[in-house]
């Protein structure tokens, strides 16, 4: 029941939020539901319930990690939303909260699905739930952004559906392969599944979910969308939505690896990983808009995720850990940048200077976020990136390691050059700055603390989940 509640509570709450006219009530509702969801996740973590709906909804380590991350990030974003909605009043404010909650419901569905078609439904729902959030300004630029996002995501996700059907076909061609499209049965029967169809399924699901993750060259919607969406939505997309999309890719990878197709998929994943890193690095060093910069940073991290997944060894462990770490770091960055944009009204780097002096708390958080997101010790992403690097070297890919490190260096230059100039630079014409409200900084501050903690210490339950998730993805604990 808990599993169903995780999906239904936010879904019903979305409808409930739409029904209420009073804005203050809606934000309270949002925070309450987010807290409840988080509590439910904790309960699930402490006592994992049995699968429901004939095995369609279940928890395993990988899903749990993503679910917990989504829930935590959503809670932080919900707190931020309280402060945000006091400062900005998006058109169609009622739909804003509803769409956020709908996103939570569909993301939870993705995290809990152990059925590929259901997973697809959840994934498409997340796409659609987010679209109105991007569009809330109703101006030309956000229109363009949402249009590109919608078309590209929908086309990609349609291809993922085709891949799902391929997977079903691969399963249907062998007798006794268990329940259709249920993850556990697919994994169990994987060695017997039809190879050609399985490979085809992987390719289409890779394109589909890869687009949602933002793998190069399927990433084109990301900078536009992240650049135009409100920062908290950008954060949610970069932190939670991308993690869900990664989960989809991880699920099919689980099946193909179990089928013994490692030699087929690993070069693909490594190739996409490096390509994404390279393109992100190239576009970052020319960037002039901080939110677009963050979008490319997100693409970079996506590249690292698939890279770790493709490397094997301790790579998958690093990847799953990096899902958490990069998710936290990206939301931290987006929310801190959000505060800056709220104060100055622009996300152009040139329009934001001397943030550490005008917005000391947000500035400090942005600074921490910069070092965290670029994988500097002692922050969490360092641990995961370092693990992925170790995987590259241990699995005999020294050139991949060299490329990865060289690109990370370029990425660092790109990010540091812009963000540090924003933090320290001289203010030209300073606008009026509202003081930083507690709602706007408590969430990112908590994230910063969490990232620092994960860089120094991984709690035992999390460690346990990571090891099991890595094992499911063909990896081992470092």
């Amino acid at each position, binding site marked *: 029941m808990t599993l169903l509640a995780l999906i239904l509570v936010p879904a019903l709450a979305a409808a409930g939020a739409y029904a209420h006219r009073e804005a203050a009530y809606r934000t309270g509702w949002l925070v309450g539901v987010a807290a409840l969801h988080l509590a439910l996740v904790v309960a699930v973590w402490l006592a994992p319930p049995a699968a429901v709906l004939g095995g369609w909804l279940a928890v395993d380590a990988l899903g749990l990690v993503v679910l917990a991350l989504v829930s935590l990030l959503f809670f932080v974003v919900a707190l931020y939303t309280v402060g945000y909605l006091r400062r900005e009043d998006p058109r169609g404010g009622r739909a804003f909260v509803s769409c956020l909650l709908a996103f939570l419901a569909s993301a939870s569905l993705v995290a809990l699905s152990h059925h590929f078609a259901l997973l697809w439904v959840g994934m498409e729902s997340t796409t659609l739930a987010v679209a109105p959030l991007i569009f809330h300004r109703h101006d030309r630029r956000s229109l363009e952004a949402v249009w590109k996002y919608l078309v590209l995501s929908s086309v990609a996700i349609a291809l993922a559906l085709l891949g799902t059907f391929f997977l079903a076909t691969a399963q249907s061609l062998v007798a006794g392969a268990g329940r259709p499209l249920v993850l556990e049965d697919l994994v169990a029967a994987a060695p017997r599944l039809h190879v*050609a169809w399985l490979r085809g399924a992987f390719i289409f699901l890779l394109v589909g979910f890869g687009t949602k993750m933002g793998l190069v060259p399927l990433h084109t*919607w990301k900078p536009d969308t992240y650049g135009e969406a409100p920062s908290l939505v950008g954060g949610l997309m970069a932190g939670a939505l991308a993690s869900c999309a990664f989960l989809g890719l991880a699920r099919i990878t689980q099946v193909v690896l179990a089928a013994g197709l490692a030699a087929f998929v690993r070069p693909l994943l490594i190739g996409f990983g490096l390509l994404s890193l390279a393109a992100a690095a*190239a576009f970052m060093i020319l960037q002039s808009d901080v939110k677009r910069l963050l979008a490319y940073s997100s693409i970079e991290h996506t590249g690292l995720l698939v890279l770790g997944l493709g490397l094997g060894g301790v790579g998958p462990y690093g990847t799953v850990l990096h899902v958490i770490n990069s998710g936290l770091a990206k939301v931290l960055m987006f929310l801190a940048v959000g505060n800056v944009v709220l104060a100055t009204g622009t996300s152009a780097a040139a329009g934001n200077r001397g943030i550490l002096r005008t917005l000391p708390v947000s500035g400090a958080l942005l600074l921490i976020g910069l070092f965290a997101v670029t994988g500097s010790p002692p922050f969490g992403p360092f*641990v995961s990136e370092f693990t992925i690097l170790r995987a590259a070297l241990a699995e005999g890919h020294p050139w991949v390691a060299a490329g990865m490190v060289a690109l990370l260096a370029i990425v*660092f230059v790109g990010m540091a050059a812009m963000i*540090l100039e924003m933090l*320290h630079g001289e203010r030209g014409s300073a606008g009026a700055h509202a003081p930083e409200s507690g709602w706007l900084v408590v969430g990112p501050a908590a994230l910063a603390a969490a990232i620092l903690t994960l860089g120094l210490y991984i709690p035992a339950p999390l*460690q346990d989940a990571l090891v099991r998730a890595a094992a499911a993805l063909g990896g081992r*604990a470092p």
Partner: protein
Amino acid sequence: MAFFFAGLALILAGGFVAVLARRAPPVADHLFVVLVGLGSVVGAVPALRVLAGGGVVSVSVAVALPGGPWVFGLDPLSAFFVLVFLGVGAASAMYGVAYLGAERGHRPVALAHLLVAMLIVSLALVAAAQAAVAFLVAWEVMAIVAYLLVVFESERAEARRAGLIYLVATHTGTLALFVLFATWGVRASDLTFASLAAVAPALPYGGAAVLVLGLVGFGVKAGLVPLHFWLPGAHAASPSHVSALMSGLVIKTGIYGLLRLVSLLGAPPAWWGWAVLALGLASGVLGVLWALAQHDLKRLLAYHSVENIGIILLGLGMGALGGAYHVPVVAVLGYTGAVLHVMNHAVFKSLLFLGAGSVARATGTRQIDRLGGLSRLMPVTWLTFLVASAAIVGLPPLNGFVSEWVVFQALLRAGVAQGPLRLAVFGAAGLGLIGALALACFAKVDGVVFLGRAREAEAAAAREVGAGMLVPMIALALACVLIGVAPVLVCGPALRAGGLVAGVGGISGLAGVAETVVAVRWIAGSAVALIAALGLGLLLRAAILRRRPVAVDETWGCGYAVPNVRMQYTASSFAAPLVEAYAPLAGVHVERSATSYATHARDPVLELALLRSWGRLRTLAGRLRPIQRGRLHVYLLYVVATVIALLVYLAAAGPAR
């Protein structure tokens, strides 16, 4: 180890007190000074015990992170560095309190104190870490904190630029270290140093990859040529006590890293030793040549750090070569010289930067050619600065001579060895050249800044700085003299550290080492003799002159009737013959006309190589822009093309699993 951590905690507490009590500056300042001082003393206790011959101590923290437990420990090498870091760190931090006091109104001074405390703590932890992940964490915290201190005066574009270049350089170096430890740890059970040392013999190609990565990763931090490009800007842009910390201590962590690498890896192959020796020579000679061409006092001192890193590397390279050619005396002396020069350079270079800070505070400028005659107005600063400059030049009876002497011993002993190692003896000539050039440069600095007459009004109006700044400077100057006069105090510990790196057990059993220990006593004796003879000579001179008429007049103007201050020889002119002789090597641009003469030093690595390559990279990246022109149908085509490419891959994959 309890004392060690307690000391670090006290230092950190001092930093936090400075922030928390910032509304009551006198209280905060005093508490900060007391806590940092106390913490340094307490934290140094275990290090002293180890260096005095006590056993190696360590403590292991089981963290649930990939890479195994975090081990912190003190062996002679770590202990030596910890001692340097805490001692010089505390002196600089105390100086900083008085130095920054004037800026309390418009800059977050309390935060700077906290950052300095954090910097000292992270430095000590870098030296004490005995596990890769703990090391990297301490390493990067140190780098980031140092960055924040470099951009303390962030309203100046110069500081921001220097800070960014520093940060990028150090982060790139850190990335190289990531690869280093990841490569090394491929076969190790975890990433503690003990496990890494255990698998060292199995590394492919004798650990060539690790050694090269170490040179890059640690080399950036140490600032060896050509990886020094970040150093002058960062050191010049920082507040002066931070420059002292950066130049005296932070860059030494790069040397520590190399020494630690060698101690874990075992004797490196000969090619590495030759490479380090060559890099050391290049850094030493080019560093001092670039320094000669500088006009900014702090930039000049920064380039001297490059030079001294070169000297340290000469020692390190000799250590490696001694190990590679199985001449343990050379190995031990080389490493010992390196370690000793680390300490000495930390002392006199931080003192020089503090002196430069006092000059800048008192006059408001760092331009050497605007200064002059400060020795009368700032006698204590002058005296300490003079001691430090004589020390950095390597003159007896001061500490710089002692460590350069040890490095010379390693170089010369290579000459009396057998085989290809003898070739290294030419390094001695190089070191001689470096010393002579350094003498020229510090004659210029001392002469133009402190002697003669003030060239501009700001120098004429200078006043001696307060006691808060003078006391740390005097302490460091006394340390220069003490080590110079009683080198026995530090040579024993340094030999232990050097012996550890060289992997030689009973170092005192080596004939050459015993000889060196005897020679060090002779050096002490000669220092005393020199001081005594000088004193005697001065007394004699005073006695003679007491009965003679002594007049005071103008400087002899060679017949020119009205000499004025503008006629004094400037720093540019002073250095001109040398700078011009080496101009092609040093990338110096000379501008001269009938009435003026000016040299412009551009850092060839930064300006000519790196920034140009970066520009090219940006141009290249710019060519990729058309990929994202905003056209949705093109984006859709990418999706289609990806599908097609993947299907082709699928078709090529063949039927097998």
